């Protein structure tokens, strides 16, 4: 299993008040799956995404990612896991505004300690894969929303991560552009990548092969929607 989550709990504290966000989530995701995690706001899907993305650690339970037990790791170890195993795609793109597309895509490779020449090469290839080979020196404000999200996808891909974690990737895009972006995920999936999609839109979730629904911090349903 690529992702193995057991009895995952996360509790936030607002002063003295305990706010449970996840109350015992168990799930397993295998290599080259295309999973959508769905749920209304407050269902705990953002918390789950943060933990799966190694941005946060659970209060209780274990999380094994690609044979690493990440549930008890230090900040710096988590950073390294994020760098090597996870490619993020955010709703708001989260690109560095003053850096051009190439530099934005290069960024994870800088922290991976890859030499400049190799970095350039890899970043260029990733941008070509998302169809932006001719825009590598454009800055985010010179690109359309769809193009920005493609840069973000290229950045998520460039390190060959174990999973691509997309949080509402089409939330800030019109439906046509959204479809184009979903097309790219489709291709990545077909190319062997594992994709975890967080969304509350049914039509976006329909692109995936498996839908996990969260409700009040627990898994309500987990079903295979498409046979491959």
């Amino acid at each position, binding site marked *: 299993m690529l992702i193995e989550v057991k009895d995952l709990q996360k509790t936030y504290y607002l002063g003295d008040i305990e706010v449970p966000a996840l109350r015992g989530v168990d799930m397993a995701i295998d290599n080259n799956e295309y999973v959508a995690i769905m749920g209304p706001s407050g269902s705990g899907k953002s918390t789950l995404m943060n933990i799966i993305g190694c*941005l946060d650690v659970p209060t209780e339970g274990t999380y094994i990612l690609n044979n690493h037990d990440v549930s008890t790791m230090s*900040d*710096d170890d988590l*950073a390294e896991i*994020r760098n090597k195993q996870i490619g*993020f795609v955010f709703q708001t793109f989260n690109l*560095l505004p003053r850096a051009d597309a190439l530099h934005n895509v290069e960024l994870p490779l800088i*922290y991976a300690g890859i030499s400049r020449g190799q970095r350039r090469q890899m970043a260029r290839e990733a941008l070509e894969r998302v169809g932006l080979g001719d825009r590598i020196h454009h800055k985010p404000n010179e690109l359309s929303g769809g193009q920005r999200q493609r840069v973000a996808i290229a*950045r998520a891909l460039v390190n060959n991560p174990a999973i691509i974690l997309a949080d509402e990737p089409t939330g800030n895009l019109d439906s046509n552009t959204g479809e184009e972006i979903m097309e790219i995920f489709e291709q990545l999936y077909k190319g062997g990548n594992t994709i975890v999609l967080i969304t509350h839109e049914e039509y976006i979730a329909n692109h995936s092969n498996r839908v996990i629904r969260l409700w009040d911090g627990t898994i309500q349903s987990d079903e295979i929607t498409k046979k491959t």
Partner: protein
Amino acid sequence: MYRFSIVGEYLAMAWAALKTHKLRSFLTTLGIFIGVLTIITIFTTIQGINEYVIGELSNIGSSTVYVEKFPWIIQGDFWKYRNRKNITYKEYRALADQAQEADYIAPRIFTFKTVKYHNEAYERVPVIGTNEQYKDTDNVNPDRGRFFTQLDVNRNHNVCVIGHDVAQNLFKEESPLGKRIRVGSQKYMVIGVNEKRGKVFGQSMDNFVLVPIGTFQGATAGHRGMAVAMAVRDVAKLEDMKEEARGILRRVRKINPGDEDDFALNQQDQLTKAYQSLTGTLFAVVFVIGAVSLVVGGIGITNIMLVSVTERTKEIGIRKAIGARRRNILAQFVIEAIAIASIGGVIGIVFGYIIGNFVLSQMNLSTGVSLSSIFVGFGFSTFVGVVAGFYPAWKAARMNPIDSLHYE
């Protein structure tokens, strides 16, 4: 290789960040600029003056000690010195007879006299009465003729060695050797002309007439300007010679043990030391002024870095999300602070160097680059950058990736 390339990345990041806020970066670096400018300007100037002064002082032989009534540098009560006895000819004889350590001992008395040759007269020339060893205690090297000998001194021959200026003023084109000149009321035959020595502190060193001491009027009757020059060939023996001379004089003068000397043993390093302690104080003052403006500049950098870190919370979140470790963020912001500080530092070094050398050239002193001042300037500004940038950078490094990602 990896380490090196990532430092390059940090520098590129720092440069990009500074470029986006040009005016802010410029104003922030101003404090450091002024601090470094102050230090380098004064440093360059003082160093130039130092080189000149120490160079001039070294014209006084370092292996010679002068036994005199007054010390060269008088500290404290002048009246204490004023009541001292003169050094006498008898005391010179005692030193000459008893001192074992000194290789050369020469008495020295002097006065100003008018020197004449035919119709040419040259006024207020220092006339020095001494012996044949003065050649070695005070480095006299006639390039024409010779110095006087022991025989000349013992027999009180009326011979003299003249300085280069005296020769030129009295004889013009004529050769002075073998000519008789009138010094005061006496006539002397010129047997040597000293090589040209040049100037020290703007004062000609070539304006003198040397005569055997016995021919000098009143030489043996307790002349008040008497001094005894004592020299060693090996500088290592200088201290032994001084101790021996002190002992002989104290015995001759019957100074009680425990009472202090009532004569002075002067040497070049007293002047050098006095000068160095003076400039040392000046250095310290300038250093404090420069340090204060560096501290103020450093506070400015800390302040602006704190603002910058807050403004760039989202950037920090992005970097952390894609794998930046704490030390990566820390290094990025510390290097940015160092960059701000060293830009001010480098400009300060350049301008300080230009101004310092301008001042030196106005004083007609030789200008130069002082490598140490460049290192000091650069080292200080870098240090200020590290110290000033550390807290904001540490704050940035500790940020939570989730919160900072959602910061707007």
